[in-house]
C-alpha cells in the first residue's frame, strides 16, 4: 500500500471492484460449505427425523409397514425386561467408567507431572490403547477375563476366582420393575476393559491442563505457606475443573453409545447382564427385524446423549463469543 494520493475517480473504481470481489467471495464461501451443510442436513437431521418416524410405525417384520403406531414401541420397551436391564447396565457402566477414568487419569497425570525420568515412555504406555479399536480391546480382554482361562489362573493362587463377565450376580439386586437393580458383576469386567482403553484420554487432558498452570501460581502459594496438599485442593483442582467437565461429558456420551466393545467382548450376556441399548438396537433391528422397536431404542439413545451434549455445545458456543 503506497501512500500515494489517488484521484477520486480511481478510488471509486477500486472500491467498486473490491466490493464485487467481496460479494463474489461471499458467494464462494457459501459454495465451499454448501456440500457439507446439505450432507449434515440430510444425513444427520433428516435421517434422525426418519428414524423418529419409523419408531412411531408398525414396521416390525421383514417388510416395511409405515402405518402409525403411536408410542406403542416406546411403551413396550419400558415394560421390557431386556430394556430395563439395558438402562441399569448403562447407568452402572457410565458411573463406574467415568469415576475410574477420571480418578486414574488424574492420578497418572499428576505422577507424570513430577518431572520424572522416562516420562515419554510412561506416557506412551498409558496412551497407546487409545489407538486401538474397541474390537481389538474386546477380543483381548474377553480372553484375559474369561473365568476359566485368563487372569483367574493367576488369581487362583491367591484364592479368589471371580466369574467376571459370566457372573449373573447383581449387587445388591433389589427387585424393581422386572429387573434386579444394582451393580452387575459382569459389567465390571467390561468397565475394566473400557477403562484400560480410555484412561489415556483423561491423562492427556489433565496433563495438558497441569502443564498450562504456570509455576508462579504454585510458587506464590508456597511462599504464602500453603502445604502441597492445600495447593492441590485450593488451586490446582479448581483450575482443572473445566477439563474434568469436558472429560465427564465425553466419557458419558461414549458410555451411552457403547456398542463395539460389548458386542466383541461379551454380547448381551446371560440374563442380559452386559446388554446395552446399542447392542439391543443392533440385534432387534438387524437380527430380529423389529425395525420400529429398534428405531425407538435409537431415539432414546439419541435423547439421552443430547441431554449431555446439547448444554455442553451451547456453553462452548457462549464461551467463545
Amino acid at each position, binding site marked *: 500500500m503506497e501512500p500515494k494520493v489517488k484521484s477520486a475517480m480511481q478510488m471509486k473504481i477500486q472500491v467498486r471492484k473490491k466490493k464485487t470481489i467481496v460479494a463474489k467471495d461471499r458467494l464462494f464461501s457459501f459454495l465451499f460449505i454448501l456440500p457439507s451443510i446439505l450432507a449434515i442436513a440430510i444425513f444427520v437431521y433428516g435421517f434422525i427425523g426418519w428414524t423418529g418416524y419409523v419408531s412411531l410405525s408398525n414396521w*416390525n*417384520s*421383514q*417388510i*416395511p409397514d409405515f402405518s402409525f403406531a403411536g408410542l406403542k414401541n416406546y411403551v413396550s420397551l419400558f415394560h421390557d*425386561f*431386556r430394556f430395563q436391564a439395558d438402562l441399569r447396565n448403562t447407568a452402572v457402566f457410565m458411573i463406574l467408567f467415568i469415576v475410574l477414568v477420571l480418578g486414574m487419569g488424574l492420578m497418572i497425570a499428576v505422577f507424570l507431572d513430577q518431572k520424572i525420568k522416562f516420562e515419554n515412555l510412561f506416557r506412551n504406555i498409558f496412551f497407546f490403547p487409545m489407538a486401538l479399536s474397541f474390537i481389538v480391546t474386546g477380543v483381548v480382554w474377553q480372553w484375559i477375563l*474369561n*473365568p*476359566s482361562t485368563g487372569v483367574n489362573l493367576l488369581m487362583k493362587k491367591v484364592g479368589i476366582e471371580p*466369574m467376571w*463377565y*459370566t457372573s*449373573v450376580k447383581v449387587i445388591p439386586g433389589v427387585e424393581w420393575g422386572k429387573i434386579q437393580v444394582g451393580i452387575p458383576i459382569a459389567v465390571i469386567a467390561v468397565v475394566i476393559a473400557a477403562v484400560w482403553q480410555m484412561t489415556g484420554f483423561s491423562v492427556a487432558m489433565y496433563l495438558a491442563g497441569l502443564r498450562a498452570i504456570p509455576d508462579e501460581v504454585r510458587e506464590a502459594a508456597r511462599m504464602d505457606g500453603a502445604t502441597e496438599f492445600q495447593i492441590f485442593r485450593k488451586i490446582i483442582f479448581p483450575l482443572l475443573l473445566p477439563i474434568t467437565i469436558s472429560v465427564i461429558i465425553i466419557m458419558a456420551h461414549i458410555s451411552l453409545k457403547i456398542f463395539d466393545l460389548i458386542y466383541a467382548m461379551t*454380547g*448381551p*450376556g*446371560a*440374563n*442380559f447382564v452386559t446388554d446395552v441399548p446399542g447392542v439391543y438396537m443392533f*440385534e*432387534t433391528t*438387524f*437380527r*430380529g*427385524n*423389529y425395525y420400529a422397536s429398534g428405531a425407538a431404542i435409537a431415539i432414546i439413545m439419541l435423547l439421552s446423549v443430547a441431554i449431555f451434549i446439547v448444554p455442553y455445545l451451547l456453553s462452548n458456543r457462549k464461551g467463545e463469543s
Partner: protein
Amino acid sequence: MKKKWFAFLSFMLALSLLLVGCNSDRASKSGGNGTRLDIFSWWTGAGEEDGLKALIKLFKEKHPEVKVENAAVAGGAGTNAKAVLASRMQGNDPPATFQVHGGAELNDGWVAAGKMKPLNELYKEEGWNDKFPKELIDLVSKDGNIYSVPVNIHRGNVLWYNKRIFKDNGLKAPKTFAEFFKVADQLKAKGITPLALGDKEPWTATQLFEDVLLGTLGPDDYKKLWTKEVSFDDPKVKEAVKTFKKMLGYINKDHSSRNWQDASQLVGKGEAAMNIMGDWAKGYFVNDLKLKVNKDFGWVTTPGTQHSFMVITDTFGLPKGIKNEDDVMKFLSLLGSVEGQDTFNPLKGSIPARIDADPSKYDAYGRLTMKEFKKARITPSLAHGSAAPEGVVTKVNNAVNIFVTQQNEAQFIDALKTAASELK
C-alpha cells in the same frame, strides 16, 4: 514448498478418487443382477462350503452356458446373511435363489410377503411329490402351493455323549427323562458335569428347550403350539418348563461364555458327559476334534423323542422379479435330484431330503439317520426359524436367556405367551 505441498495434496486426492473408482468397479461386478445366477446362502463353513462348491461345479458341467455366482455371506451362523437378504428384498433386488429354512422362515416370511413364486409345476414335472416325505413338503408349502426345494436335512433332537465316560461309570445312554436324570445324578455324584451347554448365543438354550417340549408334548401337540391350537399355559408345557429347569441344574458353570462348539468340545474332551445339539455337532466332532463315531462319542435321540425328527432343512426357492427364471429352474431341479443331493450332503455332513438317495455315500450316523428320517414324525425347529417367524424366535430367545438365569417358571410362561401372541 507451498507448491510441493499443494501438488502432493492434489495427487493424494486424485489417488483417492481413483481408489473409489476401482472399488465401484469391483462392487458392481459382484453386486450385479444381470443374467448371473447368484446363489445366496450362508454356507461358508468348512464342509458346507465344499458341498456348495461341488454343487456349483456339477451345475456348471451340466449347464455351461449359465454364469453362476456363489453369493454366500459369512458370519453369525446365517444371521448376517438373513439381514442382507432382508435388505435386498426390501430394495426389490432379490438374489436369483436363496437359502431359507423350510417352515415359518419361508412361509410366514417371504411367501406371506408375496415375494415368492410357487413351484408346483416343477415338483410335478420332476415327479418329486412322493420323493420327499409329505410332512417335509408341508413344511415348504403354504395354502396348497409349494414354494421351495429342500436340499438337506439336519436333526435337532440328538443327545451326544462321551462313550468313555459312560463306559467307565457303567452307564447307558438315557432314552427318557427319568433315565436322563438318573444318569445325570450318578455323574454329578462322581464330579462329572452331566450336561454341557454353551448359550453365549441364546439359540442353543432355545434348542434344548424345544427338544424338552417335543419330548414332553409329543409331535402332535408340539406342532399345535405353533398353530395356536395348544396354548403355552397348557399343563404339559408347564411340565416341560419344569423339566427344562431341572436339566439346567446339571449344566456346566461357565455355559454363558461358551458357544455350541465350546460346549461340544467339553463332551469331546471328556470334561462333560452329554450335550444336546443338532447333528452338525457330528461334523465338529469328526472334522475338528478328530473323534470317531461310535467309538469316542455316541448318540441317542433326546429324551422322549425316539419317534420324532426335529428337522432343520435348508431349502431354495424362486423369488419374484428376477430376470433369469429359467436358469433358476435348472438349478432347482439339480438341487432336488438324487445326484445333486448326494453331491452336496456327504460333504456338508447332513442327510439328503429325498428318501431315495444312496445310503452308501454316507457314514454310520448318516445311514442310520436316513433310515429314521423315513419313519419318524417330522417336527419343525423353533430355534432355527422353522416353527415360528423370526420375531417370535427372537422373543423366545430373550425369554430363554432370562429363564436360564432366573429360573422363574411363571414369568417364563408369560413371556412365551407374549411371544406366541405374534404367531399367525
